[in-house]
């Protein structure tokens, strides 16, 4: 049977040019972040540990006061045919808290900005006028949305109310498979740094050049290039 990880490594080792496929490993992104030397919070999601249980989706909603059908994170699921066999693909999605966020520059009020001290991209609800420019500018469909109760733009901010207080994001705390890991990418001893060293994860849609801070272990290059939406129809009822 095809070992996808080995294939990935082969690809990364030089087979890319011959395939003509755009291959952008996360390494330059990480190097970029590291050069700044500042605390940069990031999430690593090991898809090999994700069982598609959606505990993250529910805990995020409870923690962040979102309406039940408005999601900062979601796990779209679908089946995949590999060599005639059927598998599931579980892909947790959330705001990538990018290093070069496309949402910030379009914000007319400065409501959305990237924090110096930890790299979290926040939305200041007092400054947000709900113009939705950031939603349109973001290449990751659905990760930014208008919170129905506040009328302002909402998104994952790595549970800033918890992570700035020494705690872990709600989704990480309750990830049943242990797939989501959170920490400072610039702390070489952190668990996220160790995972990045060991697994050379990919980011979603690297070609959009936003340098995401959410890294995926186990994603194929092809999958990483695909556009996904948090608002995909929830037809995987299993």
């Amino acid at each position, binding site marked *: *049977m*095809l*070992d*996808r990880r080995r294939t990935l490594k082969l690809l990364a080792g030089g087979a890319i040019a011959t395939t003509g496929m755009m291959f952008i490993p996360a390494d330059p992104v990480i190097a970029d972040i590291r050069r700044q030397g500042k605390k940069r919070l990031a999430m690593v999601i090991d*898809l*090999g*540990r*994700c*069982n*598609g*249980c*959606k*505990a993250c989706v*529910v*805990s995020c909603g*409870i*923690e*962040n*006061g979102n309406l*039940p059908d408005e999601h900062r994170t979601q796990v779209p699921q679908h*089946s995949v*045919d*590999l060599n005639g*066999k*059927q*598998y*599931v693909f*579980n892909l947790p999605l959330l705001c990538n808290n990018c290093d070069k966020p496309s949402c910030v520059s379009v914000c007319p009020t400065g409501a959305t900005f990237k924090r110096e001290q*930890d790299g979290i991209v*926040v*939305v*200041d*609800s007092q400054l947000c006028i709900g113009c939705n420019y950031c939603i349109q500018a973001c290449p990751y469909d659905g990760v930014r949305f208008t919170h129905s109760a*506040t009328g302002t733009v*909402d998104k994952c901010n790595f549970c*800033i*109310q918890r*992570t*700035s*207080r*020494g*705690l*872990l994001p709600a989704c*990480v*705390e*309750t*990830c*049943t*498979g*242990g797939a989501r*890991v959170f*920490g400072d990418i610039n702390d070489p*001893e*952190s*668990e996220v740094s160790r995972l990045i060293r060991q697994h050379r994860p990919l980011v979603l849609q690297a070609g959009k050049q936003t340098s995401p801070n959410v890294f995926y272990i*186990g994603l194929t290059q092809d999958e990483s290039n695909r556009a996904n939406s948090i608002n995909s129809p*929830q037809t*995987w*009822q*299993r």
Partner: protein
Amino acid sequence: MDRRDFLKAGSVAAVMTTGTLGAKAATKASTSDAEISRYAPTSLTPEYYFDQDKQLVENPEQRFAFSKCFGCFNVCGARVSIDNKTDKVLRAVGNPYTLTNNAGQPFTMETPPKEAMLQLSAVSGLSQSNRATLCGRGNAVPDAFEDKHRITRCLKRVGKRGENRWQSISYEQLLKEVIEGGDLFGEGKVEGLRTIHDNPALANPRYPDFGPVKNQLLVSTSSEQGARADFLHRFVKESWGTPNIGNKDSYCGHQQVAGCALGCFDAVDEMALPQVDYEETKFAIFIGTNPGLSGNGLNVGSRRLAKARSDRPDFKYVVIDPILRSLTSEVDNSQGEWLPIVSGGDTALMFAMMQYIINHDRYRRAYLEAPSQACADAIGEINYTNATYLVVKEPGHPLFNQFLTAEACGVGEAEIKMVIDKATGQLVTGESEQPAELFYKGKLAIGNGVELQVETAFSLLKHRVNETSMRQLSERCGISVAKIEELAKEFTSHGRSVAIETNTGCNASDGGQFAFAMIMLATLVGAHNAKGGMMHMGGVGYAAMYDIYDGPLYNLMDFEHASLTGFNAERSGDYELSHEYQQKLAKGLDPYPADQPWNNTFVQDNSGELLVAHANKNPFQFKAWITWATNPIYGCSGLQDQVEDSIKDPKQLGLIIALDPYINETNVFADYIVPDSLQYEQWANSRMWGSEFVGDVACVPVVTSRNVKTAQGQEVNMEQFLIDISKAIGLPGFGEKAFKDVEGRDLPIHEPADFYVPLFANIAHTGSVLPSPTEEDIAFTSVDRVLPLFKARLKPEEVGPTAYMLTRGGRYERVDERYEGEFFNPMMRMDTQFQVYNESLARVKDSYSGEFNDGQPVYDVDRFWDGSAVRALWKVNEYPFNLSTFKLHLRSPYSVALPRITALGETNYIHLHEDDAAKFDIKDGDRAQVLSPKGKYIEGIVQADKTVARNTIVVGMGYGHWCFGASDLEVDGQVIPGIPSRGTGVCPNPFNIVDPSRKGASLYRDKTFGSTARHGVPVAIRKV
């Protein structure tokens, strides 16, 4: 750092101060509260935070507590934060001490709670693999308290039963009316509980063996409610004294638990449900279950599977199920695989694998050759089997189909069985320390000149698994011969480090036989109790390991028990002891078939069958029904149309009392509703399903119940109601002198705490006595709020250890060394003689044919009770599909009340393979009807792709409610509108088949155990 190494490294404090790996402690200074309120205006405020010195700083507006999770019946532990002002639970996550939330290395009881929270935090710098989780249901339950359809007042029906119209009445009025009866609804006189209880006459003189009138109280409950269920059972059995208590187990998957036990014990009424040893297994088969998705804890199952996949390249697993679920990820395609199987084909696959393994001599010969523990010890095995025991095959002999005994051979007791010594060929006793012959068949001189035809159990098995050809077995399960052989080879390529696990999904009429065969497969390779093999001691609690109701401090069952006589109305017991059987014999009639099926093997306590008995007025109709936290009309396959009319009619069933916070499809027919406490408002103590070792979750109410109070100021709930009716009627075990302490002093039960406080004290003092907690532990975990309840009831020295348990949310025994050599350590082993031939089963007769069961697994087509083939009646050309159902990852019949769960999917689907769908001009997204031979159908949206087994239609559970908040509820003239998201999709239970070979109302039965079966049954599909 691995926590195990971390703990070995020395004291927690030492490591905390020196080895935090450069993690930067967060400070409030870096981000002010004001900033947070702008960036996260709708988010919660954390229950505590850590300051620069990593000291936990509590949030004065909230409190922290441990509780039990009530999201489903897997029984996990929760840590919750509660808003002090509103008394609302704000969020819930897993309890890191429990054995079901923190896989592998739960925190030790010695770890102080604040220290535990530090270790779970970001500032600890410790590996996040130690997290303690709750699944989506557990995270979603805080919303349940605000549910508009929650019942908090005592209700009395207005209008006819089932109209869902109610008036609120006082608790005292409710008590009076249900106890004393009268013309309560203007429909005529209703017998109250007192009259029913006190009437010594036979319920039905035609069936004197079904006991007195008080047996006409039916009580129905759910499962996995731990001490609360024990409380109810104590009322039903020991205080009132009726055998008619029904549960949901036997329409859920009980036959598989009982079937597994057939391979583990020389008995027919035992239970076993082994788990895969994820940590060391080289090849695991999940059949009729997905890891962690049915019973064996989602949290612990998800983590252990994920860890095995990620950390162990030598771990492989296959999930065999009619439908692809979320547990075999594309990312791990070299390790995990989904294998589609036709619904109802499970036993065929087991037989096919056994056939290959035995015919190719790939079984663990030395293990199977050991006739005794002594021989097993000598060859390095931990257990032995009865594979070499000689079965008497001489027709007419008293031991026919039983083992040849030492007594029959004149060399010892009847308990000692005979084998043939492998080396000498001599007949010796099964106590022999030498290997015995696996294959023997023939006439044997047993002494005194007597010759008998005998055959070893293993020889019989070889013959049995070869009765059907590999090709036929392959066709039945829809798995190719090549694939079967691949599975069989893989299963026999890793020594004992292979495992096979099931749970409720193998639910055709041969579910019991499937499970027997499944255990046999593991027996063939000696995987039981082996490192990497079958773990048999999971999910064990204190109640199972110790008698926690009988000391060491309080004897909660020490009172004069009510008399309990008669068979239960679903006919569990030995038919040949019944009045009916004796009468038929006396009249010279053939006693077989029995009038209605009997459960000769196992007391099922099936709520569904008890209601069927009621509908059939056989042996009698119930006069009163107390239903608590259960919903058989929605959940029991086939039941609804069989019994609903007999429930609706007050002339047939005088009084229905529901104890529940919700109105569901069953208790909507109630006359009265007593609001039960909800979730975190409850006292709870329970084993943990899916735990690897002994442990209990235990908790006190951590928020105040929203329910109304009694005139005395007590919260109304299930326990209070049972206490008060018992006191009013004068039942033993409640009121003054309800039980005794070990010194023989009488103690009362007037409210729930009177029962749970001494119970908790017993658990805390069982085995080694727990230490006392610090003031800080008590305050931090909010145990101080309930301490007065304990101080008022316990001796001063008993309070500390009991409170200690609550400050950890339960009591958990520690596993220091998981394995001993190639096996589990003795505490984690279920040491028994594994059964290649189950003699006890061979002594039990079928209540239709009067014939004895077989002592070995039987492969057969699906059959009704009368032995006729299901497919002979409902032919393939008319009903080309077999039906299967499954429990969704998060959605369940109960989690429908949680808006964050219903938001995860509007509807379920009718799943079938795209090629099968095409034959009926159906494609993905079409609407279709699934037709049952019962003449009913369900209609929904089709998902047609390659992720379903051929010839199978699959429908998920948990959708299609018509009550439970899905429809309007009227209380005191006010209408609370139904919530549409609760009613979407389809529920496959009501439309499913019953057994036309039974008289009157019926359910489709497991052939061996009588549990309600629901899979492998014929259905058709029609495009709409």
